[in-house]
């Protein structure tokens, strides 16, 4: 990083948000959000998944309106009712995956709705192209303004978003995990562009899970945890260890009803599977009665590994065996036949048929065993559904009501019931308690623990550290598509899991 950031002198902050509160029903997404951006400075915003970073960004973007907050831009109090309000206040947001118009040209994507006009009020395409080319030249990148956006790399799409922000004279640039999908060279190019903007006086906020990037790029850092602002630091005066402690520094006061279970034979044996740049060389085992957590940050490749095990996605190298028998890559049917059950993260889209009744959802996986001569026997179907609903304590008015009428927690129980009814040997659960209220959360945890005691092998993908630490017998940590650590229950702490999830160096843990 060349040179010191220019002193902000007597100028007030370019943007300040203090005491921001945002709730969604019962869920408090942001309890005390605070952030201050100054002109000519890059601020890092860090925090665990669920710390409230995204909610805060959405408030700045005008997507959410805070329940209460003191919000100032360029010294004036503002209230954003829409994305357009935020834009016209000079705030530009660069998302991890920009939304461009695939059919329009690059130049047009920059100037949608603001195309320069020439004779007769018609769009001056030559000038639009030249303006876009000038922007790219200034950013030091080579992108053909005349090509369509479809097929551009994510890195180029982000550069186009930045070019757009510059063309709109944005004074505040917010970048939400922009580097997550970029290669090393692309990150370098992005950083160069961002530093250039800072030196020209822009106020920039940079959200990243990668500490080395925070330290390389940012002047100051703000830490959030549990929807609250925790601390502000000048980057030069703080260490990774201090930041990690502030990010996770809480007691695990929530109770996890984890029972001791006997571990038996190896049920799942994953050996060196790779899939392009998504994940590479992943090996691990899960034994009967064992709960193994796949921890790491969003985008580390955990879900993708789980999907590969269940045969949804293909992998190129390596092998997956269930009780010694190799599975074919990309065949969910074979995975089901081998005794694997998969509860996906997005239960509304992938786990349930929302318009169908609770009963039919539960027995969806049992159609073959309940049928005789190809017809489903209704009394047996009802009995099976009732049985599972009772065992999982699904709270529903009637089994004939549609699943959509249930609360999130009860929906999750129905998904679990649906798969448990198949009597699986291995249960894969992806974010088992996302979007579920606290009370039902521990019920789901109790259920998983019960299953382990009964000898089911469980592979749990979770972004919630307390859940991982509280439930898992072993924790596998992933970072950017690779396994970076395997930590036993007794050795696991928030710090060593978080560290393995965020730092590129190999973490050695006694396991």
């Amino acid at each position, binding site marked *: 990083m060349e040179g010191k950031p220019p002193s902000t002198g007597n100028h007030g902050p370019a943007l300040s948000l203090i005491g921001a509160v945002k709730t969604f029903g019962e869920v408090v997404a942001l309890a005390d959000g605070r952030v201050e951006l100054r002109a000519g400075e890059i601020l890092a915003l860090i925090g665990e998944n669920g710390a409230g970073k995204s909610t805060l960004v959405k408030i700045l973007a005008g997507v959410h309106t805070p329940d209460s907050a003191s919000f100032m831009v360029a010294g004036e109090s503002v209230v954003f009712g829409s994305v357009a309000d935020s834009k016209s206040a000079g705030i530009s947001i660069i998302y991890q995956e920009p939304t461009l*118009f695939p059919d329009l040209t690059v130049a047009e994507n920059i100037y949608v*709705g603001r195309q320069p006009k020439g004779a007769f009020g018609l*769009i001056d395409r030559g000038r639009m192209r030249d303006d876009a080319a000038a922007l790219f*030249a200034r950013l030091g990148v080579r992108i053909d*303004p005349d090509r369509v956006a479809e097929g551009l790399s994510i890195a180029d799409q982000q550069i186009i978003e930045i070019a757009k922000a510059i063309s709109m004279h944005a004074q505040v640039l917010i970048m939400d995990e922009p580097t997550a999908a970029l290669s090393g060279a692309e990150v370098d190019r992005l950083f160069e562009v961002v530093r250039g903007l800072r030196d020209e006086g822009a106020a920039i906020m940079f959200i990243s899970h990668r500490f080395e990037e925070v330290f390389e790029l940012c002047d100051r850092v703000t830490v959030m945890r549990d929807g609250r602002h925790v601390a502000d630091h000048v980057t030069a005066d703080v260490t990774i260890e201090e930041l990690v402690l502030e990010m996770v520094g809480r007691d695990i006061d929530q109770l996890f009803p984890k029972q001791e279970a006997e571990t038996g034979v190896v049920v799942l044996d994953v050996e060196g599977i790779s899939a392009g740049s998504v994940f590479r060389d992943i090996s691990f085992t899960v034994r009967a009665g064992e709960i193994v957590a796949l921890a790491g940050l969003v985008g580390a490749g955990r879900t993708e590994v789980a999907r590969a095990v269940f045969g949804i996605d293909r992998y190129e190298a390596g092998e997956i065996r269930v009780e010694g028998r190799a599975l074919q890559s990309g065949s969910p049917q074979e995975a089901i036949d081998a005794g694997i059950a998969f509860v996906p993260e997005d239960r509304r889209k992938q786990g349930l048929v929302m318009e169908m009744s609770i009963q039919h959802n539960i027995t969806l996986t049992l159609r073959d065993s309940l049928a005789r001569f190809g017809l489903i026997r209704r009394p047996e179907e009802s009995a099976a559904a009732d049985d599972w609903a009772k065992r999982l304590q699904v709270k529903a008015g009637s089994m004939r009501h549609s699943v959509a009428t249930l609360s999130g927690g009860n929906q999750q129980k129905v998904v679990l019931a649906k798969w448990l009814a198949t009597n699986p040997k291995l249960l894969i659960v992806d974010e088992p308690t996302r979007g579920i209220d606290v009370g039902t959360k521990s019920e789901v945890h109790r259920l998983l623990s019960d299953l382990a005691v009964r000898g089911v092998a469980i592979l749990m993908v979770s972004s919630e550290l307390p859940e991982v630490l509280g439930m898992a017998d072993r924790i596998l940590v992933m970072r950017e598509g690779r396994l970076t650590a395997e930590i036993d229950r007794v050795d696991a702490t928030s710090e060593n899991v978080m560290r393995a999830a965020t730092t590129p160096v190999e973490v050695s843990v006694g396991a």
Partner: protein
Amino acid sequence: MSAQEISSTDIEAVLATGSRPTLMTAVKRLLTAREFPVTAALVALVLFTYANNQLFLSRQGVKDLLLNATIVILLAVGQSIVIISRNVDLSIGSILGLTAFATGTLFVNNPDIPIWAVFVIVSLFGALLGALNGLLVTVARVPALVITLGTLYVFRGFNNLWAGPTQYFADDRPDAFGDLSVDTVFGLPIITLGALLVVVIVAGFMGRTRRGRDLYAIGSDPTAALLFGVPVGRRVFLAFAVNGLLAGLAGVLYASRFNSVGATTGNGIELDVVAAAVVGGVAIFGGSGTVVGAAIGAMLLTTITSSLTTLRVDKFWQQAIVGVLILAAIAADRIVKLRAERRLQTSEAHHG
């Protein structure tokens, strides 16, 4: 942070990236343009037919080809505005029927009415019907396919109710009005010239005004368009209203061109029109294609009919060939998309 401060090194960089189109890139653009395949097909078809029968391109032959295409061209131009915004209007056949009958009614009840007034009144009537579609689509937020399928029947129902068994014939209209479809300027029928003028105006609107480009943005990604502050509802409404206007205009020309209008005029023409737009390179899911392409597509489809008749090919084959053309257009679109995706994947794998 202003874009005006461009140093000389910046300009050099611009030159280095070669943002100015050269002859080579111009040729390449022509060959890869979405309109190229349909134009090539049209030229090949005309030349092949002409080689077999010289009368195909006689003075009268050309005039017939153009007259047959005129009304479908107008409708296809309007339809492509709607399709580009990721919508569709299936009710245009019924709008054509209502407006053609309205034209006949106006002339019969007001024998002295100036022809230009009929054009204005009936076109506005069409715009009103289109605006009704637009209102239903943007307010009810029901897919246009369903809404316009409904209005297809509603409008046709009114047409039946209004016309009953009544039909208007060539004798019911002023001669000057019928002559519009007979007289030529530089060998081109007057109504065809009018349609070509409409193509030029709408092409300018779609390609060179912000409103037109907004429609492409909406069709390309409606959610992103909202995020960009594009007034999606107002633009889609405009697209339907303009489409209705053009269908109304087509209704007037229909009454001029054909001998009779009645309760069934324009029945089923909507599918020919959607086919013309798709064959002309307008992507059925919106976002790309041009009205010029749609017009050429309309020309191709109507020419096929004349050409196959000239070549004495069975009528059955005409429909089959139109079907194959639609499939070919969609397949070509899909292949281009797949290739772009593959390019992206390899470039990302390369980075990783």
